[in-house]
């Protein structure tokens, strides 16, 4: 396969000559429908990493050349590796535009209409087709049920109120409790009023059908801008907090602040710089630590002041919040590759739907991770170990997820008939949802105060 393309150059394709492709010879296929060979894919990945280096160095000419190369090989319609490559280089391109040619970037954006309804559609499609979110809801609900045993007044704070199914299910389960349902209040946060209105309508209808005393309090706001005063929490309510893939957006902060005192600017040796800035640069409160975010700390403190009986947090299990750009690129590729593969393996959706999910959900996240910086970079996923540090610092304590909870979730997963999904249970009582042994996201439960 390599030979025929390089016949003009040499008998054996060395790595340098392999990619000296003149325009038009970019096709990896010998014939239509044949998937690209492994060597070809290796080369593609190598190119991407090269390009990433140039983008990291803000080297416009080199990056431009490489992007042109790769764009001939990557495609949103090819094999999974090609698709993920195409979203990756789109993110590279956006990053270069933002940093080097901001005028161009803003001009492009001035006519961009963000189709919110389409995003919702893609989200709902993803929700229905992949079990990730549903399983997170399942486990959250069960944890809430267990924690609220015996409680008469329950107040749930939903940090991203998008899918009423989650709470409808909880309503039914509460109704079936031996001691009867509690008075239930749900506070939902979402940035679109319409979504919250529909949520309210649906939930109120269901609750009245089941004769459960129910209130729904909408808060129209993005989570990172939410005003904690707008939560009305009354005394005597047992609080539960549900956070599905939302908390990381609070980590976005303006990184220009530490940059101004970077050693490059001050021309001091690294060691001295670190000592001056913070004696312990590994602590989460240090300025260099990726978890330094006043928004996050304030919000978590607020949550803790509510004294929740249980807080269930589902977060992507990946490190997309490092300082190093190329590291982030690598992490992003490694994290989203299983997701692309997983989506590929689902036979029940059309390619068009798959592309919609890939573009509007994965692609947007990849773009955010790679192309954005500072406050705009919202997809700051971090691994559970960092979350643990952060939460414990604020004063939360572990709660083990119950055996029944996990078994139930696994049983539910079997309905999908897909062997790749797996819920891995960790010793400390949290779970990691995996696809083909690649960890995707973790679900852990917390409570106010430390566990005995």
């Amino acid at each position: 396969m390599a030979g025929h393309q390089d016949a003009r150059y040499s008998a054996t394709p060395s790595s340098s000559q392999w990619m000296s492709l003149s325009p038009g010879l970019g096709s990896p296929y010998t014939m239509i429908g044949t998937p690209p060979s492994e060597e070809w894919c290796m080369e593609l990945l190598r190119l991407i990493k090269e390009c990433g280096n140039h983008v990291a160095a803000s080297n416009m000419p080199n990056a431009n050349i490489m992007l042109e190369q790769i764009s001939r090989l990557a495609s949103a319609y090819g094999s999974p590796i090609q698709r993920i490559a195409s979203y990756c280089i789109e993110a590279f391109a956006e990053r270069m535009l933002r940093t080097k040619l901001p005028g161009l970037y803003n001009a492009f954006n001035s006519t961009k209409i963000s189709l919110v309804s389409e995003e919702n559609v893609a989200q709902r499609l993803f929700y229905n087709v992949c079990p990730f979110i549903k399983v997170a809801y399942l486990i959250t609900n069960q944890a809430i049920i267990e924690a609220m045993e015996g409680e008469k007044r329950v107040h749930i704070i939903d940090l991203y109120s998008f899918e009423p199914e989650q709470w409808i299910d909880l309503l039914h389960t509460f109704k079936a409790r031996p001691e009867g349902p509690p008075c239930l209040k749900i506070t939902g946060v979402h940035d679109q009023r319409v979504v919250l209105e529909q949520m309210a309508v649906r939930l109120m209808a269901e609750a009245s059908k089941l004769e459960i005393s129910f209130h729904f309090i909408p808060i129209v706001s993005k989570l990172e801008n939410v005003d904690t005063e707008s939560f009305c929490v009354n005394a005597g309510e047992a609080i539960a907090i549900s956070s599905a893939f939302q908390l990381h957006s609070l980590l976005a902060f303006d990184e220009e602040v530490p940059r101004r005192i970077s050693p490059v600017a001050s021309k001091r040796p690294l060691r001295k710089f670190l000592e001056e800035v913070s004696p312990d640069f590994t602590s989460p409160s240090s300025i260099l630590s990726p978890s330094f975010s006043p928004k996050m700390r304030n919000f978590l403190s607020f949550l803790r002041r509510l004294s929740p009986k249980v807080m269930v947090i589902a977060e992507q299990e990946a490190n997309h919040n490092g300082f190093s750009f190329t590291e982030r690129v690598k992490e992003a590729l490694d994290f989203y590759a299983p997701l692309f593969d997983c989506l590929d393996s689902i036979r029940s959706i059309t390619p068009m739907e798959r592309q919609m999910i890939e573009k509007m959900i994965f692609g947007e996240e990849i773009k955010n991770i790679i192309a954005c910086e500072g406050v705009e970079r919202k997809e700051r996923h971090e691994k559970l170990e960092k979350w643990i540090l952060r939460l414990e610092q604020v004063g939360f304590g572990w709660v083990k997820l119950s055996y029944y909870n996990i078994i139930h979730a696994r049983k539910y997963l079997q309905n999908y008939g897909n062997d790749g999904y797996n819920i891995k249970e960790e010793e400390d009582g949290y779970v990691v949802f995996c696809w083909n042994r690649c960890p995707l996201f973790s679900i852990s439960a917390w409570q106010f105060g430390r566990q005995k």
Partner: protein
Amino acid sequence: MLENMAEEALPNGFVENPIAGSNPPASKKKRNQPGNPDPEAEVIALSPKTLMATNRFLCEICGKGFQRDQNLQLHRRGHNLPWKLKQRTSKEIRKRVYVCPEKSCVHHHASRALGDLTGIKKHFCRKHGEKKWKCEKCAKRYAVQSDWKAHSKTCGTREYRCDCGTIFSRRDSFITHRAFCDALAEETARLNAASNMNNAVANNINYHFMGTPLGPSMAQHFSSIFKPISSNDEAINQTTRGLSLWMGQGSSQESIGNNNLHGIHQLGSVSSGTIFGDPLVSCSNPPPSDYQLNWVFGTKLSSSNAEELTASNSLPLTDVKEAGTQLLSVPSLYSTQHQSHQTPSANMSATALLQKAAQIGVTTTDPSFLGSFGLKCSDSQVRDGNKLCGVLYGTSNPILSTNIGNDVENLAGDLLQVHPAKRRHTMNEESGGGGQTRDFLGVGVQTICHPSSINGWI
């Protein structure tokens, strides 16, 4: 008390009755239950050190250690030293029981003493000791070597498998789990039958309390609301089967195809203002299929004709690529799907490719490669590129390089990623390699996704 230790109680019948088994059955000693000692017995309390001590009896000539005085004495004979085998001095055999030195233990009290020295040693190790012995197959840990040996013999030899696929080595845990599983399966089955009658969920469910609170009732609700496989409504099947075929899904999972189109139905409902259609309720309302298809495949496409949709879908694809590379973007839906379904082998999955790339060290910068493009890169740039590679990829230990510029931030990032996770060192291995163990330079072969130990796997 310690002197008493020196002469351990001999097992019954050792010295006095060398012929084994000659005790008449009538005088067979009745055994007390463990932890309920004979009230007449002599209680001995040993310190942990004494308890754990092995080889307390040392030969002065050669230093060899023995667990029993008798053995030492016999050994001393070999050195031509005077030796004396102590016999049981007292007429009566006073039964001895031992207490556990650990204060918080229930066996610390004389009333719950254990009757056997070996027993108390094992108990102390098991409950209050460190588990030093580890089974290779399943990562179970043991404090007592004999326990470990016994386990290794049976580990993996006998397995119980539940219908849901979970594997157990113990019969009792298997039975417990199966009880759970059966309950869930029953409720799911009942719900499937119930929903087929096209009734709203709330009206149709019998609430069943089986003694385990919230257990089975959970099952029915979750299954009903979150069901991925929707009902087998015949009407839906008819419309969707045709549509599925058109979309290239000749596969056997048509029930999932149903669900997919229910998803579409919900999508379509967005425009009509009712997003939150209950998937089960919607079974009774077959969606207007043409309308849905239009909506999904792009509102710009006005035609509802199948062929036209296929053809017009090719437009955006060809626009993106140059003519020469059109081979990449396979124009029709059919072949795209066809192609993607033709790559089932692990080799072609994106994850596997990335792993492979990591292993073979794909990121080595080749200066000649850059040169072949006629790029006028200065030497320093290439060098920096190389350095970037070295610092950023595959640093499992912090590299204290003195590179300035970009590398400072990268360095900080690396160091932070290696920060001591207090109790999470096991998690680092199991969390898919974190940011630390990727090794693109091929220095060490590390997989990106670490398969975890079996303990936490299923």
